[in-house]
């Protein structure tokens, strides 16, 4: 092996890196909120002037699902959430109605079922900004200490729910009881 082979070796490593790089998606970014205290969730309860304060949910594990009546992805994940709520009645789902208006949102819930404890309005997307929402749907898991523990971008499929979300929720619950 001579010195003149070094550039070739360097190139092989570079190609290796590029091949791995092709299999990754640089746009998939973990939320900076992970393991950080959840941003405040203060807003009107959907369709009323009642004010909701997210701090009411400290000391329990809960899920925040960001949705909108105009979002087709939300419609496709919604039956899974409804089913999960039926199977695990103590699962706390809070809805964040993102950039939507109350009338179509309420009609949407009436038609497709309402698994949420409460739905908070975010017509201007201000709360969404605090939570770093890129697009709907998105789902956050918040622990009893009020920290964001997991985030799922995009539609919750049946598989995602069974393999990721429910186990993560159960694990957090077990952690809380200990």
């Amino acid at each position, binding site marked *: 092996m*001579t010195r003149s082979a070094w*550039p070739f070796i360097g190139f092989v490593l570079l190609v290796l890196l590029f091949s791995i790089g*092709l299999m990754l998606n640089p746009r998939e*970014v973990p939320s900076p909120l992970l393991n950080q205290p959840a941003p405040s969730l203060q807003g009107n309860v959907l369709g009323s002037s009642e004010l909701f304060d997210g701090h009411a949910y400290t000391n329990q594990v809960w899920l925040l699902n960001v949705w909108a009546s105009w979002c087709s992805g939300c419609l496709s994940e919604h039956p899974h959430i409804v089913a999960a709520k039926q199977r695990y009645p103590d699962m706390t789902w809070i809805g964040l109605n993102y950039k939507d208006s109350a009338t179509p949102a309420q009609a949407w819930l009436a038609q497709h079922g309402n698994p949420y404890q409460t739905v908070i309005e975010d017509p201007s997307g201000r709360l969404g900004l605090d939570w770093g929402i890129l697009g709907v749907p998105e789902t956050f898991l918040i622990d009893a200490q009020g920290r964001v523990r997991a985030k799922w971008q995009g539609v919750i499929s049946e598989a995602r729910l069974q393999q990721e979300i429910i186990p993560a929720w159960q694990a957090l619950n077990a952690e809380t009881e200990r």
Partner: protein
Amino acid sequence: MLAEWGVFALICASWMALLLIGLAWWGAQHEQAALIQLAVAAAWSVFLLTGLAFAILIVAFLQDDFSLKYVASHSSIPMPTMFKVSAAWGAHEGSLLLWAWMLTGWVAAVAAKPGKLSAQVHARTLAVLGFVSLGFLLFILFTSSPFERMAQIPEDGLGLNPLLQDIALIMHPPLLYMGYVGLAVSFALALALLWQAHAPREAFAWARSWTLVSWAFLTLGIALGSWWAYYELGWGGWWFWDPVENASLLPWLVATALIHSLLVSEKRGVLVGWTLLLAILAFAMSLVGAFLVRSGVLTSVHAFATDPTRGTFILLYLIVVIGAALALFSYQAPKLAKTKPLAFVSKESALLFNNVLLMVMTASVLLGTLYPLLLDALNLGKLSVGPPYFNAIILPLTVPLALLMGVGVFIRWREDRVRRLSRVLLWAGLLSGLCVLMGALWVLPDVEGWLVAGVGLSAWVALTASYALWHHARNSGRLSLPSFGAMLAHIGFAMLMLGVTLSSLYGVEKDVRLAPGEHYALNQYQLSFVSVAQDAGANYLTTQARLRLYRGGELVNELHPEKRLYIGHKMPMSEVAIEAGLFHDVYVALGEPLDDQGAWSFRIQYKPFIRGIWLGALLMAIGGLIAVWGRYRRVSA
């Protein structure tokens, strides 16, 4: 039907490229001049056929042929004709076709101008270039055809991204691509020389002209992109260390090293292996850049819309072309004739040190660009590397580089004496010190460390270059164009350094709120906000502000920063207003309406000598072209 002819032309071009490879290689192996002559003709036919395909694409844009997916996605009926033409290279598919066409143009030029290359080396160079072209043509045909039809023909197209509807951006990609593909010539020559394990000096002289031309284009292309970013993006920056910018800087850095190393190999017949390696690396960097920009492995503000099959294709291409080249290098380089070690105090050594510095810069920029990818690949998390890293690495490396630039122009070939050298350089050093002193007095009490370095080094590079030129002209009794070009390029670099130093250290950037009738004082200027009005352009609506710029109570100019909303696009585009001067720019960008009283936010900047950055780059490019022209005249005389 026309578009199908475009595809047909590309298919024919691919076959002709294949023919070119066969004829040229066979001709070289068996020393058959007739075959090489045919290969030259094949090279021209590839160029003409690819040009035909490109022309057909432009016609499709001019005819608003929205049955083509590419035209429908990047053009629309109300777009001005100029932008319809430039939209042809406004996105991945068309820009790749432009790239391929330019590459085949370089191949045709190489075919026509063998210079002093031996017939064998010339033919092998052509064969490699044919192979390189074939790869690009197949890339277009298999993954990125701009001639793809759509089942449903829309009434109107989506229009070109408004950011690209701009004169500088019409010119930016062609210039840059000319530079990228031009590096293929020295790459191909390096392989031809490595194949025969013998590299005569004439070959390096030949390669130097070609490399200088592509380096000049690359310089212009990068500078134009930076200028565009400055006035179009509305934040007043001129370089962001974005992966795509780095992708263009990497081949530039290697090409800069290459033109200096070629000089050493040409004049003294040494550093041969190093020069050949640089020739391979320079083109490798343009391909790595293409991979990074077009494959989607890195996120960037201006990466092309991506598709993994394209990334895979470029990677395969990279493996075949560069992998084979480096394998050939590792096998053949030890067989190249050994030369005596260089004297430490000699031009050869000075240029080698400068090369090493440039390559360290290249490696650092490459590392910074790939670091996010590397961490992600090792599953160590996601991050982005920003300007703090690049500035911290590149700025300190510029100091020894600039110092060496001054030494390099005076130091003699073979061996020089430190005493002689220091006597010559002493004056330049003292004068540079004087410049620093004057600069410091000017900005007192605001003197910063980087000011001393920036002004001192700029003066040093410019003074040594001017003095060397004068010295050379006096001794030889005439002005040699190649050295004039080289020194002009050095002075351009000095200007660029000065522009960077002054604009970044003494620039003022303010975000202010102004209501109509209000004033804002900016250094020696006063800005007065008059009014805001709505208007419509050819394919956009605009909100235009009127501001008056006063200097000492006298009206200098009226500035009209705009916010444009292009039809079919949601994002407003800012059109900044710049009162440009050689010594400083006043830069006003219109922000958002703030309240009911008609107040708006403005971004106001004062940038001393920012023009030096682009003027410097322009001088560098002109210098490079003058040097080529001078060499050409000398050869033909």
